[in-house]
């Protein structure tokens, strides 16, 4: 069974802290994505990666960075957490091959910055 695992379901951090959100997939997928989900705004892409050490900015990369040192792991980093980064964060992965593509999602991390 395919699986995308996010390290935490719920996280509370203080303003200014450096925050790491981890995501691991066991499907040997090339693509991995980080989304932010807010009410009324749907899913907005923060960053994605199509290969180890490769990354591309999405629609809202400001205040975030990412790391992909191994194919199965994609980390989202909040360099200095702020209250407006309180949100649900979703990780996803997919194959590179177009005709069989779909995104597989983790359970999400609900981050609260106080």
């Amino acid at each position: 069974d395919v699986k995308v695992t996010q390290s935490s379901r719920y996280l509370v951090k203080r303003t200014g802290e450096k925050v790491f959100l981890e995501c691991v997939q066991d499907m040997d997928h090339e693509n991995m994505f980080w989304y932010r989900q807010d009410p009324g705004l749907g899913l907005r892409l923060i960053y994605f990666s199509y290969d180890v050490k490769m990354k591309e900015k999405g629609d809202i990369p400001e205040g975030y960075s990412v790391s992909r040192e191994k194919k199965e792991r994609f980390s989202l980093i909040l360099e200095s957490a702020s209250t407006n980064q309180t949100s649900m964060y979703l990780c996803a992965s997919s194959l590179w091959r177009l005709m069989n593509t779909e995104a597989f999602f983790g359970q999400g991390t609900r981050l609260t910055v106080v």
Partner: protein
Amino acid sequence: AQSVTQLDSQVPVFEEAPVELRCNYSSSVSVYLFWYVQYPNQGLQLLLKYLSGSTLVKGINGFEAEFNKSQTSFHLRKPSVHISDTAEYFCATFSNTGNQFYFGTGTSLTVIP
């Protein structure tokens, strides 16, 4: 740029009634379309997808969707809903040039007993 528009943010419907959740897409290249469901405090789960072939796509849990190229639509339908269908539904498209997915803003389906 590719995008999808979900026309209804909230859809209330009585149990056992039919439902249609609307999605329109914009694209100048090949179209790949998806519907995902999200139950409370969970990630997204694929309901169905259209990559090519038959324009009527059947998915899990009795849902189906029809790809309509002339109307640039991919509406999701179910002939008879259950309480357990209460969830958030997202329409999405995939860009084969940008190698990324684009999601709509979601439709909250509430099934009323």
